[in-house]
């Protein structure tokens, strides 16, 4: 579904040039849950932004469902790829339902249908109890679930999340990781970054990023395990 091949990215840091990603390759299939951990400034957010088509690499190719993202062949963000932000943008006093329905309304969906889809997405994200809350009233875990629902409204095939459990409480961490696994079992490909290596637990494939290199097992090595898990074994 998503293929990054020999992707490199450099940033200018004053007089120095910093290599963030150096010839990185990564494949993610439908229904796979992949987590990446690296220390601060390791480039994990850059990797996610490139995977989501938000940022272009300096070199290498990024293909989503066979289309080239890096070359701008297709605008996939919001059309197949969902990038979940930790914070909800917009009016803090807005109702959660309005927040979640907003991307659908922006795409011309009728108000009634948008609200129906938003309710479904909130339920799928385990945030149905937040339906009538205001954005300013949400806790960190609830904010993430609502942000996730907002993205799920658009039925993405690939979900990209930047440190989804970084600010949530310990008890809720497991629930959110379980939610991501459920989404993966439903066939959504999920890529997320971890602020701590312990947050890698529960992913089907755990990777580390450091000094521009992505390390860990390749998709093929874990293919039988992924297949068994999808069958609930």
């Amino acid at each position, binding site marked *: 579904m998503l293929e990054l091949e020999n992707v490199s990215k450099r940033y200018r840091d004053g007089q120095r040039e910093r290599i963030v990603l150096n010839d990185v390759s990564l494949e993610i299939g439908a229904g796979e849950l992949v987590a990446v*951990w*690296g*220390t*601060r*400034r390791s480039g994990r957010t850059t990797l996610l932004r490139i995977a989501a088509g938000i940022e272009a690499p300096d070199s290498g190719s990024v293909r989503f469902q066979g289309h080239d993202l890096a070359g701008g062949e297709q605008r996939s963000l919001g059309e197949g790829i969902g990038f979940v932000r930790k914070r909800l943008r917009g009016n803090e006093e807005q109702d959660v339902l309005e927040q979640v329905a907003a991307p659908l309304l922006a795409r011309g969906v009728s108000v009634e249908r948008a609200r129906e889809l938003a309710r479904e997405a909130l339920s799928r994200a385990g945030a149905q109890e937040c339906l009538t809350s205001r954005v300013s009233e949400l806790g960190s875990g609830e904010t993430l679930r609502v942000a996730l629902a907002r993205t799920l409204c658009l039925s993405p095939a690939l979900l990209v999340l930047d440190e989804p459990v970084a600010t949530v409480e310990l008890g809720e*961490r*497991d*629930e959110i*990781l*379980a939610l991501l*696994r459920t989404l993966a079992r439903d066939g959504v490909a999920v890529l997320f970054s971890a602020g*701590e*290596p*312990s*947050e*890698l*637990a*529960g*992913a*089907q*494939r*755990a*990777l*580390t990023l*450091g*000094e521009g290199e992505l*390390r*860990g*097992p390749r998709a093929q090595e*874990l293919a039988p*395990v992924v297949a068994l898990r999808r069958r609930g074994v």
Partner: protein
Amino acid sequence: MGAGSGRAQALPAMHSPVNWALLGLVIERPSYAYELAHRFERTYEGALSLSSVSHVYTALATLRERELVEEVPGTQGALRSRRRYQATTEGLLEHEQWLVGQVSEERRRQRLLVTQLGALARTPERAIEVLDAYERACLAELASAPAAGEATPGTTGLVARLSAEETRLSVAAKIAWAQYARVQLRSLADGKSAAPAADG
């Protein structure tokens, strides 16, 4: 160690993890040998294995000789398969000491790994290769471990939840250490002095 008889105290230390694991099951609840074999398979699947049911009888004989288990009153002298075993006070104490001793055993194994890696410091590129393989093994371990959030609720899933959390924390620490060690080895390979710590 303990207050067992002189004969039991004179025996050399018991190293078999199967024997200690079996003692743990007997402590949990008195059982017949056949039942113990089944419980052993269910509890330690993937971590320890028995060669056959007769392995349980051999282990129970060792535990009895050391006065760590005894036959439940009323089943003594019955056919071997009809005897039930329970832990002695000595068994409870020694099992607790063995469990606590695993902390230093784990540390000893980790120190051994670090020392072995340090022995490759003359060829840092080779040491980095070993480190990469070590990190991959840790990442695979994390991915294959059950998630704490999905373990069965209640006391039945307690072991699964504790195991998942222990794996998560201990393997995560190893992954963080591997990143740190790689930075140090890379600096050595490049002829630079290593940074005091990896950038958090």
